[in-house]
């Protein structure tokens, strides 16, 4: 341990990073978790003390968007993570080895470090066609996931595809795609980091949290860490004041849009989406989707491709009436229909009552 600590301190100093700056970085990590700054010192100790933990990153039915997001990590940077923090022994998109030698690296981790590595899964796992919809090295995604995640100390399902099934699982789910939780049932220490893609800051924070406290952060009912997914985007949004005031964008590029009014009427799903985008931003806090004028798509929520669509309507239509028929349009027509039916019925009944009364009258007159 002493050797690795001195290694880190030397390394940092040689790269012009003082110990103070390093502790400062850990303080930033602590503030992401809203912990007191003194905890930063503890994180610093933990990172220094640890041998580089092993991480393997599996890609299944994915688009590599989470890998790209990981490459945008700035605090700490990807280079820091790859070279200093973790030993990333398998990651198809960045690893130098290829073919069976790449697979040997994965097999080596699984067989030599049972229960001693972190597995990251990106992409959903198809179960259709006996697994032929995604194979790597001739093995199906499901076979690989069961073996690798089953032997891991902990598994991170990164991105909405791995966490909830995502795009491949959107209706009609042509390939029988499943989330990690569903494809590998009973997995211990599984944490979901949904969003499309997951924010690099949150991935870094989760890893540092795990390394520091040796446990996952508390999670919500969808296994998402509360520090990143504990609050609705709407409740944190920089445009919230415009919502409460009743000020909304009505057309793209109009005065309200340029002034940064609320995007609720353009279909924003911020009120039903839980993530810290407005708080931490993307690409080292440069911006976030609502900040650039586009409504939130709700990408961190389960089944968002089916439940949050149509994206430009704040509420979905009624099945069977076409994609553009809103509940309001149908409701107004139904209300008019019911009113008309009763108006006609009332007239008919009135007529029949007149006839009935006349008949009664005549019957009375005869008696």
């Amino acid at each position, binding site marked *: 341990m002493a050797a690795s600590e001195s290694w880190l301190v030397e390394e940092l100093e040689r790269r012009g990073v003082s110990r103070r700056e390093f502790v400062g970085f850990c303080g930033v990590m602590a503030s992401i978790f809203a912990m007191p700054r003194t905890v930063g010192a503890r994180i610093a100790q933990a990172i220094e003390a640890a041998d580089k933990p092993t991480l393997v990153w599996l890609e299944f*039915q994915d688009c590599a968007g989470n890998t790209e997001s990981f490459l945008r990590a700035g605090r700490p940077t990807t280079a820091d993570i790859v070279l200093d923090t973790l030993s*990333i022994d398998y990651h198809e998109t960045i*690893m*130098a080895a290829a073919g069976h030698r790449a697979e040997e690296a994965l097999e080596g981790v699984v067989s030599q470090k049972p229960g001693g590595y972190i597995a990251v899964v990106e992409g959903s796992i198809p179960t259709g066609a006996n697994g032929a919809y995604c194979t*790597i090295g001739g093995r199906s995604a499901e076979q690989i996931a069961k073996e690798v995640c089953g032997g891991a100390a902990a598994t991170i399902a990164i991105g909405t595809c791995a966490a909830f099934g995502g795009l*491949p699982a959107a209706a009609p789910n042509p390939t029988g795609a499943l989330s990690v939780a569903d494809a590998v049932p009973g997995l211990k220490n599984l944490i979901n980091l949904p969003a499309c893609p997951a924010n690099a800051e949150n991935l870094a924070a989760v890893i540092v949290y795990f390394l520091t406290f040796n446990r996952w952060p508390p999670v919500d009912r969808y296994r998402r860490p509360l520090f990143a997914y504990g609050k609705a985007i709407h409740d944190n949004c920089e445009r919230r004041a415009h919502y409460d005031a009743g000020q909304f964008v009505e057309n793209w590029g109009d005065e309200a849009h340029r002034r940064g009014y609320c995007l609720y009427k353009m279909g924003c799903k911020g009120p039903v989406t839980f993530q810290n985008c407005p708080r931490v931003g993307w690409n080292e806090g440069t911006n976030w989707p609502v900040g*650039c*004028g586009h409504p939130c798509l709700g990408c961190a929520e389960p089944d968002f491709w089916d439940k949050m669509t*149509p994206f430009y309507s704040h509420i979905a239509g009624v099945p069977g009436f076409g994609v553009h028929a809103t509940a309001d349009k149908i409701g107004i027509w139904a209300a008019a229909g019911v009113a008309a039916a009763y108006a006609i019925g009332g007239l008919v009944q009135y007529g029949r009552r007149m006839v009935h009364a006349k008949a009664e009258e005549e019957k009375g007159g005869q008696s």
Partner: protein
Amino acid sequence: MTRLVIDPVTRIEGHLRIEAEVDGGMVRDAWSSATMFRGVEIILKGRDPRDAWAFTQRICGVCTTVHAIASIRAVENAIGAEPPANARLLRNLIMASQMVQDHVVHFYHLHALDWVDVVSALSADPAATSRLAQSISDWPLSSTDYFRGVKGRLQQFVERGQLGPFANAYWGHSAYRLPPEANLMAVAHYLEALDWQREFIKMHAVLGGKNPHLQSFLVGGMATPIDPDRQASLNMTSISHMRKLIRGAREFVQQVYIPDLLAVASFYKDWAGYGAGVGNYLAYGEYPEVDGANAPLYLPSGVIRARDISAAEPFDQTKVTEYVTHSWFEYEAGDGEGLHPARGETRPNFTGPEPPYEFLNTDGKYSWLKSPRYDGLPMEVGPLSRMLVAYVSGNESVRQYVDYALGQLGVGPEALFSTLGRVAARGIETLVLAEKLENWLNELQDNMGRGQLDIHDNSKWDPASWPKDCSGAGFHEAPRGALGHWVHIVDGEIANYQCVVPSTWNAGPRDAAGQRGPYEEAVVGTPVADPEQPIEILRTVHSFDPCMACGVHVVDRHGRELVKVRAQ
């Protein structure tokens, strides 16, 4: 005859498998197979066409803008929306910065390790490395101390014994030819590029909220409001930020990427003789310079056949057909047919071995990719195609830099038809676009100054304003090549959607006539010194910059029931 399998092909996007027959130290035959399928087009059916860009965007997270652009263009073409000038400029900025960032990442992080021996860098002399670096570039990070630091970091990384992503590679292979100093310089720039790409891509955060999967696309325009007098809009703060990023990118490309490329290439000139491929080149063209349909493109469209660079013939989209003879799909009229995408049909039909398997049956169907053909011919798409077409069509910048690069390496234009030519063309394109980016930024700034703030064609936003039945096509040049989306809209819903993607063109299997796809053709004839360590095959395959998630797609015609697959 040795049958070798590379699966997974790493340092690419997606899941690619190469099977090759090697005899006498050379590849005699090869098969390219995509091993992942999602069915995005099936999922798109019946949805709002204005949502389609977000779905197709998720086809690929590496080239994260390209399917969104092709999709909004296809839908705009169908419904008749006309995005205003600012939308065109915003899109050009987004597309070109994607191209620049993606090419640099490809060169350093996906491709360099085929040419650069990281372990050899450990024996480099920092002072000699510094002299080498300073002899080829003015880049300031070039002191002896700097390279000593990088070497020290690498040394300690290796000594710690956990090689992580650098383990199990072919270090020390005889095909690595760079001197230790060049290797050390490349390792230093590998790390610098990792930081640079993270910084430069903030362009996309400014213009699209985030990267990957930026979120400012709209059918009919863009969602980024422009107003120099509002803090919630793209204003002068944003322009200044982007100007800084663009200039930084230009410097990095001019002073690091291009010198490195030429330095590495000078040690591997024999690779101008390998990996030629099919010799037919297709480009749809990109970067409209004015608004409206058929606008002149900065990088023109065209077709080059059989390496004839005397002139490019015009591209005619009706000549595109797709085959499924060797793909895990089936056609109603028989698997020997070739169908135009607008009439395309596909039903997944997996006939391969049940996993786990050792070899694919390459006499039958063996890939999730179809085989697109142009006028019956396999076509290579990508930077090389674009640069050849632009060169032939007389683009000044392209001509200048192609001639410069050929002159520096002392080779003739025929050297372009090769693995090395592909690598060089990618670098030249990056340079041309890095220098062009600021022009579009200036145009955008001028529009702002004139109070021209439109970003969207509102007249076609309401689906009630669309024709009841309409079709459209959207074309785009992605970093990896020519990309086309076709959409059919009925009653405001997607009736049919299809994508013909660069990696389908390049990585597709054989067609009905048995013609190999570009990867397969390019790999044939590649020398393989050690079949256990087929680094030479990787060099050629990587030179195309494979992006498999993009390539695998399925087309569904006229609501036909597809194979139903149920989750177990």
